[in-house]
């Protein structure tokens, strides 16, 4: 009786399981298999074991791309979180103008990466760009953001923050609206100043949202690709080549599919490790507070 019911239940989830296996599990396993082979466009490839992984360890281009990826992620996630929170706090009111500004700040999130990079190419270009114009207006020499290897990652970070600030801002707004108004009234009667209120009431109440935003953004920015591909094509001299851009070039430029798959597996494991350790760290911190 019970086994029959289980079987019928399976029938209901079968369509999903089938689709899930087909478009997620299979490619995942296929990718793992590919990473153990030397594969190009032609032929079936040749099994090389962990050869691709050994080669990655010695590949300075891959190493640099990983360092670039982590650097740009560090440049993006903290400021993005802070700016999104600040915007949310400034726009968390019922006025008409706040609603308009919420729309404006979210609007960049609906643009595609091609438009975003186009806009920022105009912004960042040293001679004709807006930032160059501003620099000249103040009598300074315009900075060559996209051709200076020390400035190219900050430029990517600025572009990405501008593009991605909308969604975290919405998450923070939703979190802020969950805080009951009488909590702030109690704090006012408790002599709490603005900073104390923020640090002891608002921020602890938003704790889960902050964790969510940081984890989502970290996982997303470790996969940064479009901005670097379209703005600089990884240049100058590889200074803005991210891990996914390395993957792309290896797979679809040099058609070394096995090698690219190995790089993808490494990146996948790194993102997994970072996300899990973030989750573990914040879980421990909340646990120590006895929070729920």
């Amino acid at each position, binding site marked *: 009786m019970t086994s029959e019911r289980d079987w019928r239940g399976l029938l209901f989830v079968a369509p999903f399981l089938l689709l899930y296996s087909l478009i997620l599990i299979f490619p995942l396993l296929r990718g793992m298999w590919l990473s153990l082979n030397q594969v190009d466009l032609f032929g079936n490839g040749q099994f090389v074991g962990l050869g691709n992984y050994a080669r990655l360890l010695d590949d300075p281009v891959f190493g640099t791309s990983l360092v670039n990826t982590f650097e740009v992620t560090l440049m993006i996630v903290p400021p993005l979180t802070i700016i999104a929170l600040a915007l949310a706090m400034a726009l968390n009111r019922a006025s008409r103008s706040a609603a308009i500004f919420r729309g404006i700040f979210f609007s960049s999130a609906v643009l595609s990466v091609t438009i975003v990079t186009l806009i920022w190419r105009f912004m960042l270009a040293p001679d004709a760009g807006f930032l160059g114009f501003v620099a000249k207006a103040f009598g300074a020499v315009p900075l060559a953001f996209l051709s200076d290897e020390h400035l190219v990652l900050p430029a990517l970070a600025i572009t990405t923050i501008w593009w991605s600030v909308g969604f975290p801002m919405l998450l923070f707004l939703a979190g802020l609206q969950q805080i009951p108004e*009488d*909590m702030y009234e*109690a704090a006012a*009667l*408790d*002599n*709490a100043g603005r900073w104390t209120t923020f640090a*002891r009431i608002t921020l602890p109440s938003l704790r889960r949202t902050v964790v969510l935003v940081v984890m989502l953004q970290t996982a997303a920015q470790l996969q940064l690709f479009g901005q670097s591909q379209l703005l600089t094509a990884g240049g100058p001299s590889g200074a803005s080549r991210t891990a996914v851009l390395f993957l792309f070039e290896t797979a679809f430029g040099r058609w070394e599919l096995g090698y690219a798959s190995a790089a993808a597996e490494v990146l996948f494991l790194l993102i997994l490790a970072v996300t899990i350790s973030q989750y573990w760290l914040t879980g421990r911190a909340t646990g120590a507070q006895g929070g729920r």
Partner: protein
Amino acid sequence: MTLELKSIRKAFGATPVLDDVSLTVQSREFVAFLGPSGSGKSTLLRIIAGLETADAGEVILDGRRIDKLAPGDRGVAMVFQHYALYPHMTVRENMAFGLRNARVAKDEIDRRIGDAARVLEIEPLLDRKPAEMSGGQRQRVALGRALVKEPALFLLDEPLSNLDAALRLRTRVELAQLKQRVDAAVIMVTHDQAEAMTLADRIVVMNDRKIQQVGLPLEIYSRPANTFVAQFVGSPAMTLVPAQMVDGGEHATLKIGDGTVVQTAIRPDQLPQWANLRLGLRPEAVRVGGRGKAATKGKVELVERLGERTLVYARLRDGQPITAEDQGDSGVKIGDDVSLKIDGAAAHVFDSDGAGYHKADA
């Protein structure tokens, strides 16, 4: 320590909520603001706390004008209707928060928390968080958080409304005991007349943006200033019957619609006019089955048996509804014709403006 409210006015947009409200609260006095929703009682409390600003008027505490001060600088503490405890802080931290912000010394904070926790019997809860406590425990913590501030004035916003019936009764008794221990005035907002009657030294009845009556609990009940107070205080509500003056002798004597004549204990010369009067009768002034001078008849529409007494909702011959009382073991049934005896000495009279008149001495 006295609190003085002078001509407070407040409007939300085009909607006025308080219109020229003045009041004085003495030191160590327990005052209840009693009124229905939208009567302005909560707004008045929030103006005293500094959570709302009055459009006009002054709030003076202990000779110091406080209506321009920040809420934390006023020397008042408030217990919120939903307690408003900080969910990520322990009970101890909740109570210490305001004191730390006010830069009270560490050992003084510990002493005050210890004292308050002992009085409220929440010592075992000090390291718990609000989510780990019951409604009643949270209520005590909210009280404790107000208590440790040692304020000149406590403001309680419907403090018992979130508790279940049994707990509410118990907490009411504890609040009454607590009142004896603190050296401060207390203002409590409530829409529950039983709370107001049992706890307060004085009741401020509010309705329609204004104070309707300020008085001792029994005074509010036995000498209501107007028809609103008469009908809002007391359960079930006082019956108001249109009546005509028939004899202006020593005692005003009135005739109601079905011809019954009621001799009151009110002196006729108190009444400004003799037309458009209404007779106010509490259920206990109308007895079922009695045989007296002002006896009339009514048809029973509803019977409520409360145990120690029975409430009888009847209609007089002219269709006027009236609420009467009978003893607990009453045999009255719906549809019965009963004789009703009206105790004229306990009757009230209201003039056409709604103002109340009562027997010479309460």
